[in-house]
């Protein structure tokens, strides 16, 4: 069973439906015992970093996610959920994240050409770093497959953890992983068959051994 951590931000309808579509039993919950019982955990998120980080702190769910990650439970952050895995964010100030992925969440405006629009919104192709084996999360898809992005901030200073990028001027962090902790900047639940294939890879039993 996969637990989708419900800490009060965003709409989890599509995420739950997409996991059902790949045949995964899911529970959308903020109940700590239920989350502990799950085989794998997904940390979703939309909206502002500071608000989400405060909710994770106040509910104690952030600490739980960190504990489970330390125990080796597979964890996948999606969109803002990925950004929350980082050490800190520079979105409207300076806010600490969960610190599971070394790096900083920074505005894309600082690194993209002036003519490029913010947010980075739409379908963009995934590129895998040449110096690393393709991450198991992407075992069912191919280099160049497109996924759907909506974001104005990105994971910076995290080269060691980057497992996929997307070109928007420079190559921006599209996915990160550090052992059992994984994160995707894009929305797999809105990325058609490619997105479903990524979710399936995360949810499969096999994944726990290979990631």
């Amino acid at each position, binding site marked *: 069973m996969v637990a989708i951590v419900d800490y009060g931000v965003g*709409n989890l*309808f*599509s995420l739950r*439906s*997409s996991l*059902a*579509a790949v045949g995964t039993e899911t529970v959308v919950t903020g109940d700590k015992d239920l989350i502990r019982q799950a085989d794998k955990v997904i940390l979703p998120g*939309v*909206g502002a970093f500071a608000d989400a980080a405060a909710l994770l702190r106040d509910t104690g769910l952030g600490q739980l996610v960190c504990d489970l990650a330390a125990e080796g439970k597979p964890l996948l952050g999606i969109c803002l959920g990925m950004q929350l895995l980082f050490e800190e964010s520079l979105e409207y100030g300076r806010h600490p994240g969960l610190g599971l992925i070394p790096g900083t969440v920074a505005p894309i405006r600082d690194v993209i050409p002036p003519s490029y*629009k913010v*947010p*980075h*919104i*739409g*379908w*963009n*192709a995934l590129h895998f770093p040449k110096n690393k084996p393709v991450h198991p999360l992407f075992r069912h898809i191919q280099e160049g497959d*497109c996924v*759907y*992005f*909506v974001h104005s901030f990105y994971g910076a200073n995290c080269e060691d953890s980057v497992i996929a990028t997307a*070109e*928007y001027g420079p190559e921006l962090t599209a996915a990160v992983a550090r052992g059992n902790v994984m994160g995707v900047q894009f929305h797999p*639940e*809105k*990325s*058609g068959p490619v*997105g*479903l294939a990524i979710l399936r890879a995360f949810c499969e039993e096999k994944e726990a051994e290979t990631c």
Partner: protein
Amino acid sequence: MITKRIIPCLDVKDGRVVKGVNFLGLSDVSSPVKLAKFYSDCGADELVFYDITASAEGRALFTDILTEVASTIFIPLTVGGGINSVEDFDRVLKCGADKVSVNSGAIRDPSLIARAAQKYGDQCVVLSVDAKRVDGQFRLFAKGGREDTGLDAIEWIRRGVASGAGEIVLNSIDTDGVKQGFDLEMLSAVCDAVDVPVIASGGAGSIDHFKTLFHTLPKVDAGLAASIFHFGEVSIPDLKKQLAADGITMRL
């Protein structure tokens, strides 16, 4: 590099997909759920559902259909029609919509754009604009293109983006249903006025019209059409393949 998007639009009335020509004379086409699945399978990059129902019963039917669509297909969904309040945003977002398009509701109460953007983020608010040439001006029309507001459409779009609209859908009433190509002149004026994504709507009749659109106006992000897709005059896989072969970045 980000791809150009091809977006079929499904006008839904009482649970069925319809499409008017110049917004008049509706004809029944197909089941929204089946059509949505079909388009998703053949590579549509996004879907727009436009609820043209007037009755409360029809509206409830629409949200049921939306829920069903959002449970079966996993690409971005935009919903419009009858969006007059933040509560209306809430109603369709809960059913699985990703973006909400406002038109007449924002003309009646322009503060709706800012209030919705504050609550759900700019990326969630799409400003849909029906415009037509009147006295040498691009004039903003309301109520599905039936009512001349007297307002300048470009100025209205500029204000909408300043208030938080994250995307513009421009429907040219002059070219809609005529199938002679998109309204490049009007679109160009909009692209020059704002720096959020612009979606071209109204006038597509052939694959060449999309080629001309993206080559002439590189700032346009997406092309939207209805009947040419619904009636199979243009197939989305063919369209995307030909655009890609022509040097336009597409998701294939």
